[in-house]
């Protein structure tokens, strides 16, 4: 049996990678990829806690939430990428540093 802490460490690493990607990349698509990584890391934790919790056969909360998050991520990716493509069509760039129309 794989101990719970191993899953948590993997999830922590993925989450930190995603965090770095979302904060440090210029490209909007790359930022979106970072966010997807973070969502995946959170999902690993949910499922790991479900498996190691009390009575995984009766209490399916962890799995249910993971399914909901997968659905949410799909919606997020669709809207996010549509926004990016709309911006690209307007400005010919998706570099978030150059999208500064509102900064003084």
């Amino acid at each position: 049996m794989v101990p719970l802490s191993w899953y948590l460490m993997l999830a922590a690493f993925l989450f930190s990678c995603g965090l770095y990607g979302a904060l440090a990349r210029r490209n909007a698509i790359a930022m979106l990829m970072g966010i997807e990584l973070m969502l995946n890391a959170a999902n690993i934790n949910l499922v790991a806690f479900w498996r190691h919790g009390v009575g995984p056969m009766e209490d399916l909360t962890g799995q249910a939430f993971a399914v909901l998050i997968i659905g949410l991520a799909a919606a997020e990716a669709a809207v996010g990428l549509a926004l990016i493509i709309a911006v690209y069509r307007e400005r010919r760039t998706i570099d978030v540093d150059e999208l500064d129309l509102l900064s003084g």
Partner: protein
Amino acid sequence: MQLPLGIEVPIPTFEQFVFIQVALLTAVAGLAVVISRNLFHSALALTLTFFGVAGVYVFLEAEFLAVSQVLVYVGAIAMLIAFAIMLTRSMMYGRTSPLNNQWGKSSLFAFLFFIGLLAFARATPWPAAGEEVVADEALIGALGREFVTTYVIAFEVLGLLLLLALVGAVMLARDR
């Protein structure tokens, strides 16, 4: 197993050994997503990460989730991302750096965050694995019943959200 310098390492079981490989693959791919300079390579690494996470779900005996992960993340989301990269492909060339000017602070912050999470994960006395999971259709059925009883509101709201996202994405990306 005795390493030099007197460090004691427990010998991993077969399952743990395979898990280490899957976890390493996932972690390396996850790192490649954020450090690769070529955006398309990042997207491919992201796909690999999604596969790795599906593998982790298999270790957690959540086969339904593992296949859903491949179906939604690999089959749809990663595909959408690849699609978006192709449509905005002039970004691939000519940039000096893929990072913005706060990458130093970000990397430090992410690293400290990782150390913090790691410390928590190692320090907390987690309970050992719960009871056995009999992975059969009864489990999927139970999950389905949860969605139409306990989590019916969350489920319906998610359906509404997906519909809105669909309509919104079409409106945004439409050529006017």
